[in-house]
């Protein structure tokens, strides 16, 4: 009996028919001409033109807003940029008395983004590590396995998760998650894995990178899983049927027929989740401990770029301090734009051609 190696089969996604309603190109040229004629015939050419320009203006204002945000951030962060240049992002200052690295010292006017970059990256990647397997699991369950009756309520619940405000996640984390970590999970981690150096026992508060990572994971789960679902449903049915017809089990069908075809879109969804995690502010600021230092231990207090802005901006002690915070904001702005643009492109590559859903 010949062996069938499913994993060696390659599938090219078949072209998906365009939604004819949405594209002018598909309207026949005759109809377009009639439309053109009808549009030009009206005796309200001035009103039409005015209306059109008003709409264009409003649409262009979206451009304007992004440009304004960018220029304001650049202008206001000039002071810090002039003072520190690129050093801001990778260099620390050595304290002359204690010979320890100093990162963020508003009193003496030393500012370095290093601990905040570190905190943002560690908490975001921790969140991805926890959220991605779960999100993909949920998406697989909802699209391929779930009984029809359960699908709508479960999708609604994940939607609700996305609608809960950041500050309420923070509130819950402060009063439920952090005590839970402090009393149960952290001692266990320190006992079992303390030797790796990632779980130091010098922070008894329960706050820190791990708490921030967990709450971020809960917050980015819905976006990753709903986008993964979207790209998975965009995979044509014939792909699934073809793999099933070869005698594959359901999991093999999902792996070969669905996940493999949707992988680019799934990566896009994950990156979009990363973009969300990088900029998330309130919940993180409430549980990360707000201490600008770099420590290997995941249980140590830290801070992130967005958290330090939220905590210090209103009472910045000097112009330089304000400017340094602005520069952190600018860095966050640029990074999230790049991450989002990249992710949107990936998702768009997979879902184009299928009607998009509103969310």
């Amino acid at each position, binding site marked *: 009996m010949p062996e069938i190696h499913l994993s060696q089969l390659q599938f090219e996604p078949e072209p998906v028919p365009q939604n004819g309603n949405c594209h002018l190109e598909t309207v026949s040229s005759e109809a377009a001409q009639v439309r053109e004629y009808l549009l030009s015939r009206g005796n309200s050419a001035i009103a039409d033109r005015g209306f059109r320009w008003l709409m264009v203006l409003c*649409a262009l204002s979206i451009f304007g807003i992004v440009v304004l*945000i960018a220029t304001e951030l650049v202008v206001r962060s000039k002071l810090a940029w002039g003072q520190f240049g690129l050093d801001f992002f990778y260099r620390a200052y050595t304290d002359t008395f204690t010979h320890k690295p100093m990162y963020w010292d508003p009193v003496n006017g030393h500012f370095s983004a290093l601990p905040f970059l570190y905190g943002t990256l560690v908490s975001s990647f921790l969140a991805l590590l926890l959220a991605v397997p779960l999100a993909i699991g*949920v998406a697989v369950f909802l699209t391929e396995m779930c009984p029809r009756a359960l699908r709508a309520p479960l999708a609604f619940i994940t939607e609700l998760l996305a609608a809960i405000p950041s500050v309420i996640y923070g509130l819950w984390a402060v009063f439920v998650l952090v005590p839970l970590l402090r009393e149960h999970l952290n001692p266990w981690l320190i006992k079992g894995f303390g030797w790796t150096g990632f779980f130091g026992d010098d922070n008894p508060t329960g706050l820190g990178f791990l708490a921030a990572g967990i709450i971020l994971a809960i917050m980015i789960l819905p976006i990753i899983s709903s986008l993964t679902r979207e790209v998975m449903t965009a995979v044509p049915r014939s792909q699934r049927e073809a793999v099933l017809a070869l005698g594959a089990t359901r999991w093999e069908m999902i792996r070969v027929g669905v996940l493999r075809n949707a992988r680019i879109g799934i990566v896009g969804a994950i990156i979009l989740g990363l*973009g969300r995690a990088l900029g998330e502010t309130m919940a993180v600021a409430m549980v990360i401990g707000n201490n600008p230092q770099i420590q290997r231990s995941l249980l140590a207090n830290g801070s992130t770029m967005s958290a330090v802005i*939220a905590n210090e901006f209103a009472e910045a002690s000097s112009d330089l301090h304000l400017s340094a915070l602005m520069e952190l904001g600018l860095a966050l702005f640029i990074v999230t734009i790049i991450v989002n643009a990249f992710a949107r492109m990936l998702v768009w590559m997979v879902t184009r051609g299928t009607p998009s859903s*509103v969310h």
Partner: protein
Amino acid sequence: MRTEHTFRAKIRALTDGAATGLAVLATVLVVAPLVAIFVYLVYRGAVSLNWAFFTRNPVPVGESGGGMANSIVGSAILLGVGSLIGIPIGIAGGVFLAEFGRGTKLANAIRFTADVLNGVPSIVMGIAVYSLVVVPQGHFSAFSGGVALGIMMIPTVCRTTEEMLLMVPNAVREAALALGVPNWRSVLAITVRTASAGIITGCMLAFARVAGETAPLIFTAFGNVGWSEKLSEPIAALPMQIWVYATSPYDEWHRLAWAGALVLIVLIVLAVSLVRYVTSRGVLKGAS
């Protein structure tokens, strides 16, 4: 050969079962925290909520009682200003994308920019509006907070409006034009009207999203312990007050934070459920 084959089949069946189990486990792990958050929130909030919460202003530390009436009014004012800015611009942008700019480079660029704007962290929006409005004005104000919220509403409103308008059949537009209706009237009275349920849905979605925003308000609306309804003065907001109370060391304030969180989440869940109800009933009733 035969035994090897059955062995492989068994392995495959086992893998299939394991994968199914893992997917179910993942779903349970995702649903569990949500249920935990909701149950705990409703429990703590219901215990803390009373009539004074809606009718009284905060009292100084040490006194018991007091409420968040000023924050509720403040949130309403901020959201009102935000909607006045965000909804018209958002809808107009969506009308442009769907009616005038279809397939053009400009429309693609604007659509992309709207998506990018949607991804900009709210805290960055906060400091940008701070330097755009608060610094020239010279003081924190409710107006600047409303501007920040309004800007954050634009991309969501714009994109949903576009998607809803795209669902309106071309025949409807052509019928209007054939009757000699000017284009601007056909867009406003026919196309937008047909898609109005969907567009309202998009606005409510944007509204619910910014209703819980804290980060953009810290440096714009700033917060206010007393009653204020002036646009030119700092104003309190529900999510911001929850943040202040949650990070305080006082039990009485924690109680108020939970009550505020319950009120906020009930508002948001209502909005999201309404949206879901409307969209599931068919957005374009009577259009096709």
